[in-house]
């Protein structure tokens, strides 16, 4: 495992662009395509926005982002917060087959993370929520 960066910022909207830009440039250094980099940025935004909006309620808190590569050829983004326990897998998948009248307007964020990454994991470790977004470093990506 090689850690590419590890940064901690207040869990606020003002931190979002900086964190996503850091993740984006790190993905670029791995030789990923422009399309894949944008998909990674979207997936990371979804995870970060959930933390910014919900993890700490009215209190101040932090979000930590670790980018690393694993020897099996994956690029991993670890997103950590110490807010309320939140298992993204507890959120039901949206029904994307409904028409415009019945279609729900929300609930797409976690679904996008799952679909835009090759693997997505969550674990609660002590007071931490740890989300892991995994992207395979293949020529296809």
């Amino acid at each position: 495992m090689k850690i590419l960066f590890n940064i901690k910022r207040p869990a606020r909207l003002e931190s979002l662009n900086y964190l996503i830009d850091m993740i984006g440039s790190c993905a670029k250094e791995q030789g990923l395509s422009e399309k894949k980099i944008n998909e990674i940025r979207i997936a990371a935004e979804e995870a970060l926005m959930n933390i910014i909006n919900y993890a700490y309620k009215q209190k101040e808190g932090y979000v930590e982002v670790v980018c690393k590569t694993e020897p099996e050829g994956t690029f991993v983004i670890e997103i950590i917060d110490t807010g309320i326990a939140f298992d993204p897998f507890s959120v039901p998948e949206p029904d994307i087959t409904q028409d415009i009248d019945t279609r729900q307007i929300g609930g797409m964020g976690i679904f996008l993370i799952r679909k835009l990454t090759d693997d997505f994991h969550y674990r609660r470790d002590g007071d931490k929520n740890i989300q892991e977004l995994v992207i395979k470093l293949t020529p296809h990506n």
Partner: protein
Amino acid sequence: MEITNRQEKEITIVAVKGRIDGITAPEFETYLSELIAQGRRSFIINCSGLEYISSAGLRSILIIAKRLKTEQGNIYFSGLKGAVEEVFKISGFYSLFKIYDSDASALNNI
């Protein structure tokens, strides 16, 4: 994000460039809401300069589309590419909306 619009007979073509994300989605939604308030009812959203759309952007599109439906309006999309095209596919937007390669082909078909 950068948004412009032009009128082609009764259809308003809205070109959106850059990113529709958690920060810019409210601005995108307000822009379209104001056009609807002015009486515009048919829209082509040109996405050829759009690099990125997150769930916040999808949410704004669904809000606008539902509103247009109740006002007997329509929303179409053109010029999707890269990650935006992928997100539209994943989200089922290809069965929800009519999507065209370009404004010209949209205008010919609607």
